[in-house]
């Protein structure tokens, strides 16, 4: 076994801490100087309303696209914020402004990730990409279907034909979309890529929404 190198805070060069302190002090000093005419809390509220109306459970690509443009506008407007409290004692405003910037970045990630995903799963619903699950479909029958597929031969007669075509649609959709969305910060915005999901412990199956 290789010797574990135990690194303590004391071993880290002091410079790291002083530079980090300096970086944040400068950042907060910059924020405190912000003297535009947007109230950070009002801007936050406006963005929240936009996100709640368009990027909640039911999602439509056209609205996601429009929201993405809206978020870019919020980002521009953020630069015109007024730091409505510049005092030094227990002042929550500068850190709120800093957080709001991060919320804008996170909103972009959520909205872009949702837009690029031409399907839905989990708690979301995109009516445009509904796979039309038959109402009497039972998710366990998909596990049986997958089992037969793995064994090399699906006994197609054994399934309700409507269910069978649905399961094929579901399987096909998973080939493309059973992936985690990865966002990387590139050139001032999120770059979206995908990563396989580990399904070795629980086999994926359709979800029932009723």
């Amino acid at each position, binding site marked *: 076994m290789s010797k574990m190198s135990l690194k303590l805070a004391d071993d880290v060069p002091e410079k790291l801490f002083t530079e980090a302190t300096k970086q944040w002090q400068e950042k907060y000093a910059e924020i405190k100087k912000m003297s535009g005419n947007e*109230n950070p*809390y*009002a801007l936050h*509220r406006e963005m929240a309303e936009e996100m709640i109306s368009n990027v909640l459970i039911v999602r439509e690509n056209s609205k996601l696209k429009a929201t993405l443009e809206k978020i870019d506008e919020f980002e521009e407007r953020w630069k015109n914020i007024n730091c*409505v*409290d510049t*005092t030094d*004692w*227990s*002042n*929550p*405003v500068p850190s709120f402004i800093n957080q709001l910037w991060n919320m804008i970045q996170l909103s972009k990630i959520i909205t872009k990730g949702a837009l690029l995903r031409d399907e839905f799963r989990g708690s979301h619903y995109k009516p445009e990409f509904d796979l039309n699950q038959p109402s009497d479909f039972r998710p366990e029958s998909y596990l049986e279907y997958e089992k037969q597929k793995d064994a090399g031969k699906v006994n197609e007669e054994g399934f309700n034909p409507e269910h069978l075509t649905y399961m094929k649609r579901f399987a096909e959709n998973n080939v493309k979309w059973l992936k985690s969305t990865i966002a990387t910060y590139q050139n001032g915005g999120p770059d979206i890529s995908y990563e396989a999901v580990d399904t070795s412990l629980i086999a994926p199956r359709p979800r029932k929404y009723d």
Partner: protein
Amino acid sequence: MPDTITFKIKRQDSENTKPYWETFVIPHVPNSNVISCLMDIQANPENSKGEKVAPVVWDCNCLEEVCGSCTMVINRKVRQSCSALVDQLEKPITLEPMSKFPVIRDLAVDRSRMFGALKKVQAWVTADGYHDLGPGNREPQSHQEIAYKLSECMTCGCCLEACPQYSLNNNFLGAAAISQTRLFNMHPTAKNIADERLDTLMQEGGIADCGNAQNCVEACPKSIPLTESIAEIGRQVSGKLWSNIFQAK
């Protein structure tokens, strides 16, 4: 005339500066609560004289009356601001910080003394060590109902704000800590240090400082039976006093 609500807020810029009152008039939004109104003020921090001022500072977290951090004095009554519905309050609405804790700024107070009191009475389950201690003792069914009620304490401070014996200048541990002592002294594992907790409550600032005014139980938003807890701990303390006397012989 537009439908508005007037708030009179007792503000304080820092720990050592003088408090002052400031009035805000905001549009009335049906179903709003005191926190959503404070957020309206944040979004447009202008007092009734039309002056731009710093937004009011307050604390909040859960917004569902379980964390206790938003406690303040609303229309002279101590309560949680997140569950104070504006339509049910008399107008104008007055907001003040609690008076039994040091003000940090505006409506935000420092409740550390309450958490300190919980440390003093060791309000936790004592299961120490990194080795596997096996399953804990079972909580008897007969305890569950009362233990559940006592465990709902959110260290909000209402009971202390209302208590005539609790002040900024003394060291009374207060009803909440006494009630938590009762909870942990009945817990099948935590009771192993019941005596140590009672020792703490026999010292200065302990149970003898309670004057039995019973304001605490009236003020508790979680309806915790604080006077019963005080009586029960009183019994435990007297029991211990007697056994101390006999042991000394």
